C-alpha cells in the first residue's frame, strides 16, 4: 500500500480529473484530498500512481466510483446540539417574520442535517411557509438524501443530540424503523427540493434568508473559501443568516467584513446589509 502522494503526482491527478471529467479539485485543501486519494487506492488495491492515472484516463465508471469515494459524505443528525439550540432560539424566531422562508443547505451529503432542520421548522410551525433547497455536487448522495434512510444504530446518538438541542417531542415519531435502518417521515420532505449544485463551479440560483454550509469549507483552500463566501453573500437577502461548522472561520476570509457574528461560538453569521 502506498503511504503518500508527491505534490507533482497530486497536481497531475487533479488535472486529469478536471480535464477529463470536469470536476475541479484544484482549490481543495491538499492534506485531506491526498489522504482521500490514498484511501481510495487502498480500497481498490492500486499500489502505484501510474496505475491510478491509467485507469482514470481509460475507465469512465472508475472515475464515478472514485468521486463518490474521495468526497467526504459523513454527516450526522443534530451534530453539535448547541448549534441547533441557537437556531431554535436566535434564528428561527427572526425567520418567522418572513411570509416565505427560503433556506439553502449547501453540500448536504446524505441529508441528515437537512432533516434535522426540517424537524426544527416543523416544531416551530414554520414548515409550511418554508422551502429548503438541499444541494450537493454528488448525485449518489442526493439520491440517498431523498430516500431519507438512516442507519438504525445511529438513532440512539441522534436522539441524544435532538434532546440536547432543546427537542421536547418523541424523536421516534419522526421516523419508522425498517430492519437495520429507519425511514424519515415523508411529511418532513414536503418542502425540501434536492438537486445537484457544485460550489466550485456553479453560480447563484436563488435568494435565501438562511444558508447552512457546515463542515464543507474545511475541504477547501483559502482561495476557494473566498469564492464560496462571495457566492453565499450574493445568495443571501439583506440581513440573511450564514451558518458554518463550529471550527470553520471567516477570520481568514476577505469577505468577513460583510458579515457580523450572531452567535460566534456556534458560527452563525449575518449579512450586514
Amino acid at each position, binding site marked *: 500500500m502506498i503511504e503518500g502522494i508527491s505534490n507533482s503526482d497530486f497536481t497531475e491527478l487533479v488535472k486529469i480529473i478536471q480535464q477529463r471529467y470536469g470536476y475541479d479539485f484544484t482549490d481543495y485543501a491538499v492534506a485531506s484530498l491526498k489522504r482521500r486519494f490514498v484511501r481510495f487506492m487502498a480500497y481498490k488495491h492500486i499500489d502505484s500512481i501510474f496505475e491510478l492515472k491509467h485507469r482514470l484516463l481509460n475507465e469512465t465508471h472508475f472515475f464515478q466510483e472514485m468521486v463518490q469515494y474521495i468526497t467526504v459524505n459523513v454527516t450526522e443528525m443534530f451534530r453539535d446540539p448547541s448549534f441547533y439550540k441557537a437556531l431554535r432560539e436566535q434564528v428561527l424566531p427572526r425567520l418567522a417574520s418572513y411570509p416565505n422562508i427560503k433556506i439553502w443547505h449547501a453540500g448536504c451529503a446524505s441529508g441528515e442535517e437537512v432533516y434535522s432542520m426540517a424537524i426544527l421548522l416543523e416544531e416551530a410551525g414554520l414548515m409550511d411557509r418554508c422551502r429548503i433547497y438541499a444541494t450537493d455536487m454528488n448525485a449518489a448522495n442526493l439520491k440517498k438524501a431523498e430516500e431519507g434512510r438512516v442507519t438504525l444504530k445511529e438513532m440512539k446518538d441522534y436522539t441524544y443530540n435532538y434532546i440536547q438541542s432543546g427537542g421536547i417531542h418523541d424523536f421516534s415519531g419522526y421516523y419508522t424503523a425498517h430492519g437495520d435502518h429507519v425511514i424519515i417521515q415523508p411529511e418532513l420532505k414536503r418542502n425540501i427540493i434536492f438537486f445537484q449544485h457544485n460550489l466550485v463551479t456553479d453560480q447563484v440560483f436563488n435568494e435565501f434568508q438562511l444558508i447552512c454550509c457546515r463542515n464543507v469549507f474545511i475541504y477547501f483552500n483559502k482561495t476557494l473559501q473566498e469564492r464560496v463566501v462571495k457566492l453565499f453573500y450574493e445568495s443571501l437577502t439583506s440581513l440573511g443568516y450564514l451558518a458554518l461548522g463550529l471550527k470553520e472561520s471567516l477570520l*481568514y476570509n476577505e469577505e468577513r467584513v460583510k458579515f457580523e457574528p450572531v452567535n460566534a461560538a456556534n458560527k452563525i453569521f449575518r449579512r450586514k446589509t
Partner: protein
Amino acid sequence: MTLPPKYRILLIGGSAGSMAVLVTLLNHFPSPFPIPVVIIMHRLKNVVSELDKLLSVQQVIREPEDKEPLLPGKIYLAPQNYHLLIEEDATFSLDYSELVNFSRPAIDLSFAGAAAVFGAQVAGILLSGANNDGAAGLSRIIAAGGTGIVQDPATAEFDVMPQAAIDANPGVQAMSVEEIIHFISNISTENKS
C-alpha cells in the same frame, strides 16, 4: 552560523488513562515553549466540552479552527469530532471523514500529517490508551527521521496503545513520565541554543 532547530513540532496523543499524565506533562511544560504543541486526545463527541479549559491550568490551550496557522509556543488541542490535519504552509486543516481506529480525532492522522510536512523535525509522544491508534502514525514519524516516544507500558494505566506502537516500531523509545518531562524540557533548551 546557527544550526536549524532539531524539532519544529511536538505532538502528544493519548486515550484511556492518559488524562492524568497529560496534566502532569502540562504542569511541567517550559514556558515559553519554542515550537507548536499539538495534543490529540480521544474524546466524546456532541457534548459541550470544556477539555481545552480544563487543561488550560498553566497556560492557555486552544482548539484550532480550520486554516489557523501553527505558532511557536502555542498548545493546541484537537477538537472533538474532527480529524486534525496539517497543511504544507503550516496551517491546520480539519477533516470530518470516517472514523480511523474507531476514533475522530485519530492520533494516526495528525502524527502522519506532521511527518509529511515537517519530516525529521517532528517529535511524537504516545501515552496510555486501550486501542492501537497512534502506532502507524509513530511509524511514519520515525520513517521520516523524527523521534517517536511512548509512555512505558509498565507505567501506563492502559498499556495497549503504547505496546502496539512498540510492537510496530523497533525505533520507538519507551520512557517513564519523568523521562518524558525531561525530554520536553530538553527541546526547550536545545531549540534555543
